[in-house]
């Protein structure tokens, strides 16, 4: 208490107020029971017309759009009725994403890079979304949408070069691993500052609209960063200008160690935030690839036909740590992931394909082996270009390039200083003979 200050408490006989701090249901060692998570039956959610008034989607902001039922069949008005080939391809990219994550996670543990972030359990949110979008729709991603790059056929070797910050990393070793940029694949450069991409996506969508373009924009943030001011700026701008944009909140329940209650999840759903802005909103089972596809397709069609923006909450679960620097066993029950009532997205899609006679366990095992080999081969290819800290990096002077379009005098001087320091430290060093 400040010097000389008396107690701040006042109020005579009035009852004392209580300070409330949210607390997750389970902590390490606790038994897990997700009975409080309402899982409505698949197929029971109405599908309004894509041109409907935003307010007509209000019930869907509290419901959960689901397509795959307990018998692994696709059911209800949101069933996107995808053919077997498309479903298999979607399954393959989801499995590839998981295989990629597993390999890169190991690479980080082997010291080949500093950091990695998996999206285990959330593969459907990115991959099925990518399948529902046009390949040139602009994506403003967060760091857990690697599935979109893989779905769009971005070369895995390029991704690994970026993760290893090696001499072939086209971002010149400047970005943290997994913070890709892929302009040719309509994939915006990833920021570590959270939710900043949301108003940017709206701006891109406005530019597209003002130019009479046909491409829409979409963006992804986590449940935690929906508490940022940028989220609300984006929602306001998107509705004010009826922007052709799809804004996604991937509610994976955890923001590092903060559960979704710290972003307001105890009071309402994230999708329901759309209602106050007059925006269409959908809450979707994020572990149901068909539901994710259907929701994104609905929102994309709505945006493309100038009926305005949509906020989608993907209700899912982060089955792994936040990143390789995180230890989830320190703050949540180890049983949570397996007890998650909406299952695993890859397993659910696989069982659906098997149930409709389009797939088999044997085929799946074969595919998993092939994908593991594919990732391994890409990793070996990328490693030829070096791994983090092993010397094979971009030429030294690139550190000073691209701060501005042209190198100003003060950076030129600082670059000369940096090179001088390097020569003192390693007298035989030459810029281009590393």
């Amino acid at each position, binding site marked *: 208490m400040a010097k000389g200050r008396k107690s701040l408490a006042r109020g005579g006989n009035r009852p004392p107020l209580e300070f409330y701090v949210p607390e997750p249901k389970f902590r390490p060692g606790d038994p897990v029971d997700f009975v409080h998570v309402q899982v409505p039956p698949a197929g029971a959610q109405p599908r309004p017309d894509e041109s409907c008034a935003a307010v007509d989607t209000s019930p869907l902001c509290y419901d959960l759009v689901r397509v795959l039922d307990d018998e692994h069949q696709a059911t209800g008005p949101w069933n996107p009725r995808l053919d077997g080939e498309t479903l298999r391809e979607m399954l393959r990219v989801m499995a590839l994403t998981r295989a990629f994550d597993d390999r890169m996670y190991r690479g980080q543990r082997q010291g080949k890079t500093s950091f990695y972030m998996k999206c285990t359990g959330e593969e459907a949110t990115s991959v099925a979304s990518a399948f529902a979008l046009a390949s040139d729709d602009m994506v403003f991603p967060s760091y857990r949408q690697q599935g979109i790059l893989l779905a769009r056929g971005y070369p895995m070797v390029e991704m690994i070069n970026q993760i290893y910050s090696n001499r072939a990393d086209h*971002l010149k070793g400047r970005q943290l691993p997994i913070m890709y940029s892929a302009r040719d694949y309509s994939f915006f450069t990833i*920021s570590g500052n959270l939710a900043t991409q949301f*108003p940017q996506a709206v*701006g891109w969508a406005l*530019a597209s609209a003002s130019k009479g373009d046909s491409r829409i*924009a979409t963006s992804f943030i986590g449940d935690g960063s929906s508490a940022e001011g940028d989220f609300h*700026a984006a929602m*306001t701008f998107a509705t004010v200008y009826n922007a052709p944009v799809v804004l996604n909140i991937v509610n994976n329940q955890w923001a590092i160690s903060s559960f979704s209650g710290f972003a307001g999840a105890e009071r309402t759903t994230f999708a329901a935030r759309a209602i106050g802005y007059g925006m269409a909103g959908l809450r979707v089972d994020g572990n149901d690839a068909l539901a994710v596809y259907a929701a994104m397709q609905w929102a994309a069609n709505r945006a493309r036909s100038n009926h305005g923006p949509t906020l989608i909450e993907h209700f899912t679960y982060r089955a792994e740590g936040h990143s390789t620097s995180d230890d989830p066993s320190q703050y949540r029950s180890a049983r949570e992931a397996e007890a998650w009532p909406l299952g695993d997205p890859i397993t659910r899609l696989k069982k659906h394909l098997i149930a409709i006679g389009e797939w088999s366990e044997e085929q799946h095992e074969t595919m998993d082996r092939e994908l593991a080999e594919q990732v391994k081969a890409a990793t070996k290819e990328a490693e030829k270009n070096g791994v983090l800290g092993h010397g094979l990096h971009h030429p030294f002077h690139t550190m000073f390039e691209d701060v501005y379009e042209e190198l*100003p005098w003060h950076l030129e001087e600082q670059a000369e200083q940096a090179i001088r320091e390097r020569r003192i430290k390693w007298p035989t060093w030459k810029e281009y003979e590393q």
Partner: protein
Amino acid sequence: MNMIEAINDALDIMMGRDPDVVIMGEDVGYFGGVFRATAGLQKKYGKNRVFDTPINECGIIGAAVGMAAYGLRPVPEIQFADYIYPGYDQLVSEAARLRYRSANEFIAPITVRSPFGGGIFGGQTHSQSPEALFTHVAGLKVVIPSTPHDAKGLLIAAIEDNDPVIFFEPKRIYNGPFDGYYDKPAKPWSQHPDSAVPEGYYSIPLGKARVVREGEAMTVLAYGTMVHVAAAVCADKGVDAEIIDLRTLVPIDIETVEKSVEKTGRVMVVHEATRTSGFGAELVALVQERCFYHLEAPIERVTGFDTPYPHSLEWAYFPGPVRIGEAIDRLLGAD
């Protein structure tokens, strides 16, 4: 032409030349901006290219970043520099670094216009000079004009520039130059010898200072309103000062500064912003590092005080003739 008209002219010319230039901000459309800098532009170019925004600086700058990523050249207006902070993260963490972090895949050719500085009884929320918060950020350019002629030429250059530019407009001199004597009648730009603004397109390169007047006794480094105040005080005191209007703080024209200091040996740095860690500190450091053996006296730093801008006492805060005069005396008295 006054500075507002010059800015309006620059915007008009650039919108006419480049269909990708768009203007956005609070009240900039139908109304033409609270200072009228965008007057008539919506009517001429349509709402697609000149539009009002919500009161949300984070949204304004964030959307501008996305528009720039699409390929437009947004010129957002922040109504007062004091309100730029909600958009600060989008400027310093996003716009400033897009080119670097994406290795040139995405760039942010945005020109953020914002009236700044005091002297209009704007109180603490309409008077700040936050330029140093931006000069500290790698990837941003900071430009501050001091005449209508420069405002037009520099703004055109800023809009054409492929890097994000913070363009601070000294609102005290929007309508006329200001000599620091607040209790005397203000003069309009039309009576100022430097007020002639050429018609049509011209640009003034960023990173190039203007030698306002040549002199031998001392070098004055200033920008914006303070160029006029410092020049008036030097003239009143009969000091043969070389007055340098920096025009661009980043990148700064170090050659012009060095050349002048080597000639005069005495330096006074003047700005209106608060003193501690202000841009003046950077100027003093640069001169000390690069011109130390030419200096014949300690460098003088004349600034605002380290307080918020006080409404009723704004002229006590303002670095006016007395504060500048004392600094000149110290500078010239020290042998």
